[in-house]
């Protein structure tokens, strides 16, 4: 727990007062019309939506996620957070096309791109999906705030979720997107400042840049290992061999005990022992340094295996046995010795094997970059779509998306430098739940009095900017795509704003339920949502933008198939032993192929969209890609100039 002083509280009170001020000040603008409540009247200069893009995607769970992958994989872990790079292409392709459509939401865009019953089904489906997803996202970022408050104040998880998500709801209920985007601007500034300050502090605390590099070059080699839960009451041994020659690099000088349970003190002592061994690399200590024959470890727990390989450039395979050497299980293959690899962005462990294979990297590059040609290829697209439409021109929309995402990538790198510093200070943490909190620990443990309060205000800014966006966005889908389009098409502007506020409140309540369900399993849920749930529809999301023949039935079938197939491939089939547990990049490609076997036949067996509808869409949006027949017809009708 952390004790706040007067100056700390002052920062927090000032910040909260500013938030309430935004709610009150923009109340009148928010209530003018639906367009004001959800898009700030479509009149914002590029830097306002850009700051909103950045602030929204800086959530309380983001440093947890980034710290988790960078502590484990070094700088190459930053590629795990490279999703936002879809904006590199999107800013000049799908952003431009979407801004020209003028659709409030991705659901509404469906009824412009497609026509008839299929389009209406898609619109309804996407609207419902987005209301659910926004509640879900609110739940997971809310529970991340709960986790932080638990660390700082010792509160129960639900308290941080409840108090600070409600605070965000106050100004969203009052002023809608005007409040969101104006608050996002100052929240973005506060958040960026505190991220830079804490990260500098982290680097300095670790001894400064030179010291960090020097220590990484001198530390012993490590690899994480989770002891199988069914290895209790056995004796284990570890063997480390050179990946190229097969020559032994280090091995246990006797077997260590694996107990059913050991005390917390004993566990903490083992972690300290591992950390000490990592830091005190000496020539005469060559060989396996942890665990040793004197140690007793616990089945089902995670540990850091430590050895001194002598050669920091070599790669090794790490194996373990629990039956006296009759059989060996591989823990890591092609793993880098030493710790210098943590500074390398491209520390590949082979084409397909190890913790960072080239195949994974290529998959991520394709997903992140090529995804920019589509709409909805990343879950971030949906909030970005709202920012695109709130920009005053097509040019402003493009620059806002590009700049906001560039800031997100720069922010990740600043975090990463601090996490490398944290590793130097605390190497050998095997529990991901502990090292995921690295950036917060740097801030709350190392910043001086006064700045702690500023840090907490920054954490509040990070939280509120994300919460406010998703409350308003979810409410927009509920209001614009459900209520206005299907329930009450003749609704007045005043009643639409009122429904927007009611929807916001319902989303708030729903987020509490999801937050409690997600609990502490944040990273597992994030990987599922960011990677797997999007895999099967990734390509259809591109096809709907670039290929005139792709129709609503094809796209709808892709969504339906993906919901079933993703669960099957990721969980159900491996669980019942039908297929082995596959690496995530392989799951992605399998889902791409399986889904295509559904939506391509459906597309070709159903009629193309009505040509009049496609021509109207083409003339307005001027999409990229394969639109030959539609373009020719638009030219024939004189809607666009002939080439």
């Amino acid at each position, binding site marked *: 727990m952390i004790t706040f002083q007067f100056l700390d509280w002052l920062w927090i009170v000032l910040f909260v007062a500013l938030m309430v001020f935004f709610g009150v000040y923009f109340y009148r603008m928010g209530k003018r019309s639906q367009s004001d409540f959800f898009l700030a009247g479509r009149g914002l200069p590029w830097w306002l939506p850009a700051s909103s893009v950045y602030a929204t995607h800086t959530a309380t769970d983001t440093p947890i996620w980034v710290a988790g992958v960078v502590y484990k994989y070094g*700088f190459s872990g*930053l590629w795990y957070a*490279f999703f936002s*790079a879809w*904006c*590199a*292409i999107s*800013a*000049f*392709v799908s952003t*431009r096309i979407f801004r*020209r459509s*003028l*659709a409030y939401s991705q659901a*509404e865009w469906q*009824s*412009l791109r497609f*026509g*008839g019953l299929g*389009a209406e089904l898609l619109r309804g489906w996407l609207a419902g999906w987005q209301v659910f997803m926004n509640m879900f996202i609110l739940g997971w970022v809310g529970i991340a705030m709960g986790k932080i408050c638990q660390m700082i104040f010792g509160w129960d998880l639900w308290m941080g979720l409840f108090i600070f998500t409600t605070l965000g709801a106050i100004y969203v209920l009052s002023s809608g997107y005007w409040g969101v985007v104006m608050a996002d601007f100052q929240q973005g500034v506060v958040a960026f400042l505190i991220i830079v300050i804490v*990260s500098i502090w982290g*680097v300095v605390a670790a001894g400064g*840049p*030179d010291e*960090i*590099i020097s220590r990484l070059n001198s530390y012993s080699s490590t690899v994480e290992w989770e002891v199988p839960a069914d290895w209790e009451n056995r004796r284990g041994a570890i063997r480390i061999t050179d990946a190229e020659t097969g020559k032994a690099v280090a091995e246990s000088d006797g077997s260590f005990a694996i107990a059913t349970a050991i005390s917390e003190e004993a566990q903490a002592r083992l972690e300290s022992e591992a950390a000490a061994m990592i830091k005190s690399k000496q020539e005469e200590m060559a060989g396996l340094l942890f665990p040793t024959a004197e140690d007793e470890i616990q089945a089902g727990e995670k540990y850091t295996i430590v050895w001194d390989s002598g050669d920091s450039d070599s790669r090794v395979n790490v194996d373990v046995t629990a039956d006296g050497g009759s059989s060996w299980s591989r823990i890591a293959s092609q793993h880098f010795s030493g710790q210098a690899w943590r*500074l390398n*962005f491209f520390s590949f462990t082979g084409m397909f094997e190890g913790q960072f294979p080239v195949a994974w990297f290529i998959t991520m590059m394709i997903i992140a*970059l090529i995804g*920019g040609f589509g709409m909805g290829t990343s879950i971030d697209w949906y909030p970005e779509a709202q920012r695109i439409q709130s920009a005053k*021109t*097509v*040019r*402003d929309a*493009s620059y806002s998306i*590009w700049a906001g*995402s*560039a800031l997100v*990538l*720069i922010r*990740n*790198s*600043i975090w*990463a*430098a*601090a996490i*490398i510093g944290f590793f130097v200070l605390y190497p050998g943490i095997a529990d991901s739940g502990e090292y995921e909190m690295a950036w917060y620990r740097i801030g709350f443990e190392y910043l001086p009095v006064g700045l702690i309060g500023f840090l907490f205000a920054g954490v509040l800014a990070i939280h509120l900017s994300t919460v406010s966006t998703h409350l308003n966005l979810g409410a927009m889908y509920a209001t*614009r795509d459900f209520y*206005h*389009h299907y329930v009450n*098409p*003749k609704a007045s502007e005043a009643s639409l704003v009122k429904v927007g506020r009611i929807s916001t409140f319902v989303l708030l309540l729903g987020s509490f339920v999801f937050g409690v369900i997600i609990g502490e399993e944040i990273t597992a849920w994030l990987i599922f949502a960011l990677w797997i749930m999007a895999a099967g529809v990734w390509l259809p999301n591109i096809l709907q933008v670039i290929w005139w023949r792709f129709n609503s039935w094809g796209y709808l079938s892709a969504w339906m198939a993906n919901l079933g197939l993703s669960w099957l491939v990721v969980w159900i089939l491996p669980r019942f032993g039908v297929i082995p547990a596959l690496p995530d990049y392989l799951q992605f490609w399998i889902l791409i192929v399986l889904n295509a076997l559904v939506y391509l036949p459906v597309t070709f067996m159903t009629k193309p969209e009505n040509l009049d*509808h496609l021509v109207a869409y083409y003339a*307005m949006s*001027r999409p*990229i890609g394969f639109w030959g027949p539609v373009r020719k017809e638009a030219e024939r009708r004189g809607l*666009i*100039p002939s*080439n």
Partner: protein
Amino acid sequence: MSFVRREWSAADADDWHKEDWLAILFSTVSYITLLIGTALSFLAMPIGYLILGIGIVSGVIMMWIIDPKLKRISHEYEKRQKDYLRQLEEIQKWEVEK
């Protein structure tokens, strides 16, 4: 005629050209080098400053290439936006046959 076109007619700007692809290329290079350059620069590694510099220059080149085209697209499109917005609301309220 220069390799990068800087003058655009309204009709031309609406289409997709080499300049769009060049902007995408420099945008991608900029993102990747900003990511790597910032992290390494934060640890005061000289190669980091160089890579960060490449990221910034790539961003500037990207803007130099695409800005005239985007300006032209925006200028022309905003003239028609009012009509498009009216059509959008008609679809929203089921006032047109879809």
